């Protein structure tokens, strides 16, 4: 018993010494803390993982250059496992415990929505990597949320781009295939909302679960519906199954996908069924094909080369969202200093910033800052991306 007590006392003492040693090794200038919550594990891990990698790379790079105005940045990153409750706990920890200046994250709309009330109450700027417009605008009051920004292009932009294209091709009847997740749902809602503006008739509106292994039944129904084009709104993996199923069914309709599939991995998963698919995509995946005059080209190629050299895996648009979030946020901190209100104001003043997702022009009423020009229509030919002329 005495031995045990002695050991305990000793352990505590050693611990205290260690802590005080750590404290004396302080940097000359106080660090800037940036909090990050991402869906690194769990169902959205294919979004969270490249985002985490990108942020890690960028933070390292920035600190190697001497940080922001001589202040090193300390990035504190937590995984919410795709769970709303955990997302909230982590955000609170970052705000209250770690006292971060600003937040980046999360990867999905649901997990971001869970922390929006908290960051608003705590008055901490948040740059989200999730797409839904509900993140930046209250769906009830239609007011812009003061403290929340996002970098991914909104679905309405992608839908507009697709509809412009279909109208040019003279399509009249369309069919929707959407996945029953937040992503698929908001895409579907936009498609339904904007279709009348283009005088499109929605002849079929089918849904499937993200875990489904076969969508032939839904596609068979579409096959018989007289649709001229099928618009599939889903994240990467189930979209690949839709492409394969369409090929198996011998369907000749035009297949349009959402920007959610814009990664090389999609082509790998769908195999030769991916040939001829058309989709709106951020410019990241077609950076090489862009004219030299494009203001984004340098940023895109730069990011891609660095990322692929470091992680030996292809870039994805999701990593790009994190890139934009990090770059805009650190720029804002550079101008504003460690003051949350000023950082927020600076984020709102971003103009003409060339990111991976497009040219950002924020405003008091626009916390997304992108237009439909953020997208290019691309197609897949011989296992590679090609611009649609």
């Amino acid at each position, binding site marked *: 018993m005495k031995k045990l007590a002695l050991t305990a006392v000793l352990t505590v003492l050693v611990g205290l010494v260690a802590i005080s040693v750590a404290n004396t090794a302080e940097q000359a200038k106080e660090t800037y803390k940036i909090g990050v919550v991402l869906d690194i594990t769990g169902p959205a891990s294919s979004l969270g993982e490249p985002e985490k990698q990108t942020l890690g790379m960028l933070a390292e790079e920035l600190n190697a250059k001497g940080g922001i105005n001589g202040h090193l940045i300390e990035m504190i990153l937590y995984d919410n496992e795709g769970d709303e409750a955990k997302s909230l706990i982590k955000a609170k920890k970052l705000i209250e415990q770690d006292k971060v200046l600003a937040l980046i994250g999360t990867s999905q709309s649901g997990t971001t929505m869970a922390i929006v009330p908290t960051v608003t109450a705590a008055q901490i700027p948040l740059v989200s990597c999730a797409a839904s417009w509900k993140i930046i605008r209250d769906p009830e009051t239609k007011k812009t949320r003061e403290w929340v920004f996002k970098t991914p292009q909104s679905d309405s932009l992608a839908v507009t781009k697709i509809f412009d294209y279909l109208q040019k091709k003279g399509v009249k009847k369309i069919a929707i295939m959407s996945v029953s997740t937040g992503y698929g749902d908001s895409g579907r809602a936009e498609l339904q909302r904007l279709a009348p503006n283009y005088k499109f008739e929605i002849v079929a509106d089918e849904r499937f679960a993200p875990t489904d292994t076969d969508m032939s039944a839904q596609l068979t129904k579409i096959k018989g519906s007289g649709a001229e084009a099928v618009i599939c709104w889903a994240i990467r993996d189930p979209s690949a199954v839709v492409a394969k199923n369409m090929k198996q*069914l011998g369907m000749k309709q035009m297949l349009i996908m959402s920007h959610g599939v814009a990664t090389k991995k999609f082509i790998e998963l769908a195999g030769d069924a991916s040939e001829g698919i058309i989709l709106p995509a951020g410019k990241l995946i077609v950076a090489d094909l862009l004219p030299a005059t494009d203001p984004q080209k340098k940023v895109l190629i730069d990011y891609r080369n660095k990322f692929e050299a470091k992680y030996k895996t292809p870039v994805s648009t999701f990593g790009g969202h994190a890139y934009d979030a990090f770059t805009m946020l650190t720029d804002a901190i550079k101008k504003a200093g460690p003051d949350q209100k000023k950082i927020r104001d600076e984020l709102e003043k971003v103009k003409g910033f060339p990111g991976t997702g497009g040219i950002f022009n924020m405003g008091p009423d626009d916390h997304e800052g992108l237009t439909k020009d953020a997208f290019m229509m691309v197609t897949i030919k011989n296992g590679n991306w090609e611009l649609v002329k």
Partner: protein
Amino acid sequence: MEWYDQLLQYLITGITTGAVYALVALGFSIIYNSTEIINFAQGEFVMLGSMIAVSLFPLLGVPLWVAVILAVAITALIGLIFERLAIRPVRNGSVINLIIITIGGSILLKGIAVLIWGKESRSLPAFTSTEPIKFFGATLSGQSLWVMAGTLLAVILLHYFYEKTITGKALRACAFNRKAARLCGISVERMVLFSFGLSALLGAFAGVLITPITYTAWDAGTMLGLKGFCAAILGGIGSNPGAVMGGLVIGIVESLSAGYLSSGYKDAFAFLILLLMLYLRPAGILKKKLEKV
């Protein structure tokens, strides 16, 4: 597309998915027969089979069929190890305990898969040509023919195995009466071990058959496992022909309800059919009556 062509197409789709469910359900049934355990890790065997095949095929550069056979064999081995490490020590635990152990096993296997293969999805090329084949007014892919043929082959081999071989007969004896089987000199332990290997093998086989149609990832087995479980119960747990029937019924119900009712509620229909059946006929389609003892 005429209505009958459409119906035919739904049926083809349903049978293809149903065949995969049937293989998974057979795995449940085999283990249940020798142990009365529901193995919630069955879906993970499916995932492991396809994951191993995917990594053997392009990485080692072996021919596809070699990769498939190796993957199935390795997964069977994993099934054996799983039984030895996780099941045997607690064979006589309560139903709740065993359910939780196999759920724990399924989470563990998923965790291992993430460590080995990461979280990215992968796919296999089709076994043969990917051009769709015309079949009356409907179409089917070469791979769905493979799935159907593979399932049929597995069912026939399994039947032969159970009826004609000593081991198969011993397994049946264990299912019928474990105590009596032991008295006849059958090593029940060996049979339990064997049944885990066999059902892992079937699961892995289902996995490699379906991967070219879809894709696979660390979590791809969970839903297949649940559907297979449904199928096994629907057919009357422990009955092999029942498991196959249950699988096909669920596949077809899903496909028809997606086609004619509501695609969003497709999975719900599968489970509702199951619930309805449990209420009306708790022992499954093919079993006569649940004896209370």
